[in-house]
């Protein structure tokens, strides 16, 4: 079965995001960009399916600016067979991305789409679910374990207070949680090989999708700061403060 893995280019996990001085957005210029960590987990899951003989081909897809080619090259170096870039300078929101992916799914006919549960920039946690809904497919979000069958998958997912296991029909969309696996690093020979793998570039217009934003970003700002308090010297002083000053115990 073909597996399709959408990957997003985001501000690197280790960099603290800051608003631009005019509040019009988040400062990204000159900062390191990387593949969304949850999407790396999705890539790793797809690669393991291929290594186990359960996936025949892995197609990585990214939607965004030309620079997303870099993210796709990373996906190819990790183990994707080919890549598709839907290139646009529009700021894409999850619904627009889901619509783009839907058209590509109809073209490619994968048995499984696996993507990160959320991107660490907009923290929306929507795209996978939206794609599943637009396709009329089953979904299993926040997966911590996946067993693929031929026409069903069993997915253990994290819910409030524990874990549940779903049996879903394939094709389906699965979104990954942190504990699904530990992604590998791309090796130098694979990075070299990735340069020769096919990368197709399309536009939203090619796919017939209107990607106009429905939400207008009015401003971004630092969240209200929390003032640090005091250091206490010992347990007795801590208890005194909690009882008599904060009155919480």
């Amino acid at each position: 079965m073909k597996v399709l893995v959408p990957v997003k280019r985001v501000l690197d996990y280790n960099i603290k995001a800051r608003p631009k001085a005019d509040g019009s957005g988040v400062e990204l210029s000159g900062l390191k960009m990387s593949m969304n960590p949850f999407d790396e987990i999705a890539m790793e899951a797809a690669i393991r399916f291929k290594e186990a003989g359960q996936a025949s081909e892995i197609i990585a897809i990214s939607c965004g600016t030309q620079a997303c080619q870099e993210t796709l090259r990373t996906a190819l170096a990790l183990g994707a067979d080919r890549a598709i870039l839907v290139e646009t300078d529009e700021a894409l929101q999850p619904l627009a991305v889901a619509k783009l992916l839907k058209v590509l799914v109809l073209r490619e006919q994968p048995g499984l789409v696996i993507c990160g549960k959320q991107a660490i920039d907009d923290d929306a946690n929507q795209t996978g679910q939206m794609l599943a809904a637009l396709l009329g497919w089953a979904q299993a979000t926040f997966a911590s374990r996946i067993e693929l069958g031929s026409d069903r998958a069993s997915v253990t997912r994290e819910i409030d207070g524990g874990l549940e296991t779903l049996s879903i029909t394939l094709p389906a969309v699965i979104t990954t949680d942190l504990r699904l696996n530990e992604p590998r690093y791309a090796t130098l020979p694979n990075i070299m090989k990735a340069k020769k793998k096919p990368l197709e570039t399309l536009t939203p217009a090619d796919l017939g999708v209107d990607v106009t934003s429905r939400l207008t970003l009015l401003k971004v700002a630092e969240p209200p700061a929390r003032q640090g308090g005091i250091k206490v010297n010992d347990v007795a002083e801590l208890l005194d403060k909690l009882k008599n000053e904060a009155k919480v115990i």
Partner: protein
Amino acid sequence: MTILVVAEHDNQHLKAATRHVLAAAQAIGGEIHLLVAGQHCAAVAESARALSGVGCVLLAESDVLDSAGAECMADLVLSLARNYTHLLAAASASGKNWMPRVAALLDVAQVSDIVRVDAPDTFTRPIYAGSVWATVHSEDAIKVITVRATAFEAVAETGGSARLEKVDAAPDTGLSRRIHLALNDSSRPELESARVVVSGGRGLGSAERFSALLEPLADKLNAALGASRAAVDSGYVPNDYQVGQTGKIVAPDLYIAVGISGAIQHLAGMKASRVIVAINKDPDAPIFAVADYGLVGDLNQVVPALTSAL
């Protein structure tokens, strides 16, 4: 404006998150309806009629709603959606799961995890793990929103007298069914609604020490137990203990962070707590920058001393 809030419950009790989401609905303004959807959950709907500010409780009961996944829940909400200007659910594991399906099928953008209502069409939400807050304006006719429960003060449990209406559940899509459910057996309060949370980090060093040191303290305080991502990744505790941007967002009256350094990711999940206590041996740990009371010391001595002094 008429707002549909989807209740969070376990078929027996309404979860506290529901009353926080209702508060967000009140901040938007207009008539508020509450959907209680589940299996044998009429008692939950009955008790919800008393919630402050709710005009109508809609009850949908079906076996499918308990065992089937997001697909059926989304179809149910979708079948009601056209009557409303706003659809709200908690940004919980459940709301996050099915709400985006509703938005996609209505062809509207979802506004996830709001922490402030600026206007009935304008909302503020954290992005980048809470490092930045974004204010967004929605032009969609139906606003589909998930709410960070801890950011809104809960409405009162009593004072309302809503009417009750039954609605039909959507048929089973056959796409998905639950085959196993493993709920953590816990007599402790739920992490997201507990008044006191005791949380441990990598400083605990092992699963054994995590439970040996923190469980007695949590017992004394009737607290929920939480953990940093580092502690979860190290295997000290299960995943659903994780407090942070990608885990649970908590805002208890008292949050005690033990052996937690205070990564941005973790702070995003707990810095709305009313009082924060940090116990850490490193005086420069970032957790102290947000703690009301910091105690620099060896947790192996401090925690038992605190437990026995309570």
